[in-house]
């Protein structure tokens, strides 16, 4: 349903026929699988049909459920489900459809039955997040297997920082850092995290990713007056370098409004006017009146 280009020309007769055949075949197999599910049939032939359907259409929760039912029934009382084939199947499904809820959940279900496999799962996550660094399904799965593998918060943070080293435009990784920040930051931590954000901000001031993290770090170290003053100076510098950029102006204005001792009406008024000019779409969010300091 996403990203399918409109056809400029009607599909050829062959293409239409091929799709119709695919649809008819899928429909036939699906009817067999659902009938077998209703009849609680767990034989090899049924197992194979369900697996085939899942590789074609990994989003069908009923078929994943049926596969679990069959695995549990076939393992028998006290028997263990073989986890390896589940990992192989879900890996294939996820390569085809990396955002398939059903595939990720089935994989988690399987790994929970054999937690010793969790460390290897972290490597699979690393592979998937190289292909799509923002895949939130994979980030969510990673958090689950990270717990199973007994990763420490430091391990988790090291991974997220590694992703940012590869590409600072990664909001998912900034989210991970922010989720681990304490409520208030000591000076050393605040300074370090502001540095992390700053590296990204100076490279690409129009990329939002780091700005949200920057705002959050500042919110957690507002009591550190000299840090805040230094940040105001930095933002004024960045703004001079990038006068047409919205985010440096917005971040500076936010900080000034929360730090009235450092603000003048003239500067606030200019930032307010600049924001309304650079980013007219958000004029109502900024408001018509210059905020009072």
């Amino acid at each position, binding site marked *: 349903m996403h990203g*399918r280009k409109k*056809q400029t020309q009607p599909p050829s007769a062959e293409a239409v026929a091929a799709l119709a055949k695919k*649809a008819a075949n899928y429909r036939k197999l699906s009817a067999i699988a*659902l*009938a077998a599910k209703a009849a609680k049939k767990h034989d090899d032939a049924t197992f194979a049909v369900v697996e085939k359907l899942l590789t074609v259409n990994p989003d069908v*929760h009923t078929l994943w459920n049926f596969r679990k039912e069959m695995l549990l029934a076939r393992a028998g009382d006290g028997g263990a489900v073989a986890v390896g084939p589940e990992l192989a199947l879900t890996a294939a499904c996820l390569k085809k459809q990396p955002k398939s809820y059903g595939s990720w959940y089935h994989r988690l279900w399987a790994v929970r039955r054999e937690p010793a496999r969790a460390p290897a799962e972290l490597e699979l996550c690393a592979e998937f997040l190289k292909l799509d660094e923002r895949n*939130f399904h994979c980030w969510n799965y990673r958090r689950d297997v990270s717990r199973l593998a007994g990763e420490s918060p430091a391990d988790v943070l090291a991974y997220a920082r590694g992703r940012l080293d590869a590409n600072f435009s990664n909001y998912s990784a900034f989210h991970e850092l922010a989720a*681990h920040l304490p409520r208030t930051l000591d000076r050393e931590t605040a300074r370090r995290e502001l540095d992390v954000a700053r590296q990204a901000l100076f490279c690409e001031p129009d990329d939002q990713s780091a700005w949200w993290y920057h705002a959050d770090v500042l919110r957690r170290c507002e009591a550190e007056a000299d840090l805040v003053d230094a940040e105001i100076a930095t933002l004024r510098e960045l703004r001079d370098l990038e006068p047409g950029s919205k985010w440096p102006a917005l971040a500076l204005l936010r900080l000034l409004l929360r730090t009235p001792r450092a603000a003048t009406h003239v500067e606030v008024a200019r930032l307010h006017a600049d924001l309304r000019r650079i980013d007219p779409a958000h004029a109502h*969010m900024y408001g018509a*009146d210059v905020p009072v300091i």
Partner: protein
Amino acid sequence: MAALSESASPEAAASPEAVFHDEKHASYLVAVSKNTEAIEFVLTEYMRMSGVYWGLTAMALLGRDVHKEMDGDAVVAWVLRCQHPCGGFGGGEGHDPHLLYTLSALQILALLGALDKCDGAKAAAYVAALQQGDGSFHGDEWGEVDTRFSYCALSSLAILGELWNRSPPLIDVAKAVDFVDRCRNFDGGYGAVPGAESHAGQIFCCVGALAIAKRLDLVDGTLLGWWLAERQCDSGGLNGRPEKQADVCYSWWILSSLTILGRSHWIDEAKLAAFILECQEGDGGGVADRPGNMADVFHTFFGIGGLSLLSWFDGTAYAGRPAIDPVFALPAPLVAELGLEASVCPRATASLLETWARARDEAKATPPPSP
């Protein structure tokens, strides 16, 4: 009365992009529901219940007689066949019950005035039994947890009239609220589970759940309103997360959340309407995710729903159609008729900057709970 032809609509004269393909969308929605041989139809059979809900609601927003034009009696009979003995509904015949499709089924029955035809007590019991000790909800018996399911549960019980005034209560609303609150992030948004990244679809579910529970006081409206408003891209469309492409479906997830928070005016509403109109398929009808892409029923519903939330139809030849309710995603008159209650914030009078200037005097906003 026959619908006005598109070329005669007043907005068409103003700007060629502002044409709304009213008739074509209606024919598209009818055609899609009947084209059961198509590969797209076959592959999405497992979630047909949601597809039918999108199609019916879109038709209702177009001011159509849903019962007549979408074969209401047959739809009701089919929905009832999808209810399992446990009370939950499957996405299609022979498919397993799930909270996602239970909500869609109840929404369809509500649209068609047939809620009393299903076993409502059993449906409510099914939903309630999926609540966990931490307040979260499993999607089904297999145990997946997601804040989408929290919304489905609260909305389903509200539609069934089983959320309040039951003694003892069917679910622990306070605990359900607590779980959603634990999913709040540094950016004011919400993810699927505690610790998960904010995402527009997830935010709608969490804000919607809190609205139904009347606990919007837990939302940081300034921070989240700002984050949601920054989803608007240069194209006018909205994206679902920072640095992602705009997509029509976020017109719904973001705009409904902003509306519930009283801050829909923090984006350029006219520009968003123009983006949605640009995503229409001019030939066959329907709305696509982005300009130049193929239409589908999901984006057609969210596109029309977005225009409805924007009150875009007012002042056009299509004025007087039912508005959509931002919390329950059903036509507002139906929500009123069913007596569904939710809290919605009044339109924020203070701008973001004024709030920032004021906040320094007050207790600073609490950061989200640590993991």
